[in-house]
């Protein structure tokens, strides 16, 4: 579907803003204080269909692209809300959509689109395998028509708020494959049916990110829960990673605009020494500087989304968008902190909460150093550095 048919992104942004306005700073401050999952906000967003944006219409979604999904997530974060609580419900299903069988899609996608099934956890990272994904050791052993899974994952976000979870596990030992990235497979785990074979333990964080360790102890999965080809799992999840980076770049753009909006408004109104503090170049320049970076990041994000929606595989653009946006948001966060002075630290202003939340995207879903490594190696053809 083209942009013209979808109307202006302003219309979509305005509708998202309207929804978010029902959940103001007070709502988020209380959730932050209680370290609580923002159930009511997620329910409203789900019920209004925004998280089914990328699911094709035939499965009950809106059938839109990353451009629109990015607009939604950007606007959520721009209002001061935190899309991280539920963004993965939008895109985790991508692997299923691209590599699942017709039966698997018909079985899961309509429930994910309606929100009845929450698929917002993807178990990849392990204590000894983060960025180096091919080193994962969680093993799914084929036994007849089933796989039996044993191992351990960490930083599995929202697993305690999911009905379904995607899992990347080894199905052939690393020693027996030609390439390290071979021999991995993707599975759909129905967390409601796992009994005691899957245990989770939350990791306490400073950033309102609900993430956990997950332990598999003889988890039995029917073979029909494998998504795509056995041994091809690593490649199956790659294009999903591009989508994730473009969407999280959108959240960082939203965070950046939140800080710029708030800081500029405060700088216009707050008077010290008989004049608005924004009259001082020391205050206004860092805010303008951050705004320029946010706009540049948004332009690269737009390009990446356009390429992805056009059927491309924009690895470089997706990574660059994520890198630029996370840094721009962080610069804007610091500009806002400086502009607000002591009040920036006060919980009631919301700035310090967002400051903590925005920091995450410098290291997740991929560390910015690895983005540099990717660009150096794959775009600039320098030797691999890691």
């Amino acid at each position: 579907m083209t942009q013209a048919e979808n109307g202006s992104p302003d219309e979509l942004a305005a509708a998202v803003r309207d929804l978010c306005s029902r959940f103001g700073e007070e709502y988020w401050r209380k959730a932050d204080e209680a370290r609580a999952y923002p159930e009511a906000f997620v329910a409203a967003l789900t019920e209004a269909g925004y998280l089914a944006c990328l699911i094709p219409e035939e499965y009950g979604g809106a059938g839109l692209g990353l451009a629109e999904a990015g607009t939604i997530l950007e606007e959520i974060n721009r209002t001061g809300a935190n899309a991280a609580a539920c963004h993965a419900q939008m895109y985790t299903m991508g692997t299923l959509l691209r590599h699942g069988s017709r039966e698997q899609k018909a079985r899961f996608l309509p429930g994910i689109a309606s929100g009845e099934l929450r698929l917002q956890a993807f178990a990849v990272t392990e204590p000894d395998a983060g960025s180096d994904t091919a080193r994962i050791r969680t093993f799914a052993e084929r036994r007849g028509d089933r796989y039996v899974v044993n191992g351990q994952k960490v930083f599995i976000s929202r697993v305690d708020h999911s009905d379904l979870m995607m899992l990347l596990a080894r199905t052939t030992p690393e020693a027996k494959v030609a390439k390290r990235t071979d021999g991995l497979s993707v599975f759909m785990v129905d967390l409601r049916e796992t009994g005691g074979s899957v245990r989770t333990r939350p990791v306490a964080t400073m950033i309102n990110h609900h993430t956990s360790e997950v332990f598999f102890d003889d988890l039995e999965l029917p073979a029909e829960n494998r998504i795509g080809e056995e041994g091809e799992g690593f490649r199956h999840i790659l294009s999903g990673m591009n989508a994730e980076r473009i969407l999280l770049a959108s959240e960082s753009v939203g965070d950046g605009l939140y800080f710029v909006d708030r800081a500029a408004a405060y700088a216009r109104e707050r008077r010290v020494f008989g004049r608005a503090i924004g009259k001082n170049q020391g205050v206004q320049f860092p805010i303008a500087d951050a705004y320029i970076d946010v706009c540049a990041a948004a332009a690269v994000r737009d390009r990446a989304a356009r390429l992805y929606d056009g059927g491309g595989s924009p690895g470089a653009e997706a990574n660059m968008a994520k890198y630029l946006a996370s840094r721009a948001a962080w610069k804007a966060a610091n500009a806002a902190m400086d502009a607000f002075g002591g009040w920036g630290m006060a919980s009631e202003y919301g700035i310090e909460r967002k400051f903590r939340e925005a920091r995450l995207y410098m290291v997740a879903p991929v560390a910015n150093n690895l983005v540099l490594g990717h660009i150096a190696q794959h775009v600039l053809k320098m030797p691999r550095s890691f």
Partner: protein
Amino acid sequence: MNITVCVKRVPDTETRIRIAASGNEIDEGGVKYVLSPYDEFALEAALQVVEEAGSGRVTVLSFGGDATKESLRSALALGAHEAVLLKGEPTMDGWATAQVLASELEGDDAALVLFGVKAVDDDQQQVGPMVAELLGRPCATAVAAMEVGDGVATCWRTVEGGQEVVEIDLPAVATVTKGKYEPRYASLRGIMAAKRKPLREKEAAVVEPGFVVESLEYPPPRPEGRIVGEGPEATAELVRLLREEAKAI
């Protein structure tokens, strides 16, 4: 039962209004426009009444320029079934606007025509009752809640210090205020569906305004804050100033 809701596109209440060089209109540069918030209450009332009845259509009608289509589309995304734009340039003359709207509504089969109690840009509260007069229909103003029965609507009106319950025979006109009808937000499905809903455009009837804005002025600037003293002993002076100078208590 069909309901027509008349809506107006107005500057967002958070917009900083600047007076244009002409001195008798606002500078539209950089102004963000929204559906007038009271019109959102009216639209929500219409949607709830039709949903409760289980049948009927909600039409949104507006008099304005091309950009007004954006506001109408947002009303369609909230659940209105169709939209009509009377293309023209509305002025501050409520009587002229009422005549334009009434000429369209005369052939309308809507049992209820709803308005917001006022538009938040000019605050005149004229157009709804004037349209009722032109159509020869009863009108209930400042309605906070309504129940629509067979040929009659019961309306709870917000009045000073309480509520007044009135019954109006249908077809009728009502202006809606804050009360029962908290506006919903658009779903993504609603936004997508709105693109397929009819939005008809017509040239508005031409009515010469008899009401001309001579000039606009900014409110007087707020004086600097004043510290009247510290501690309990300052209370008496503070109360005196609040009473005699600010007339706030």
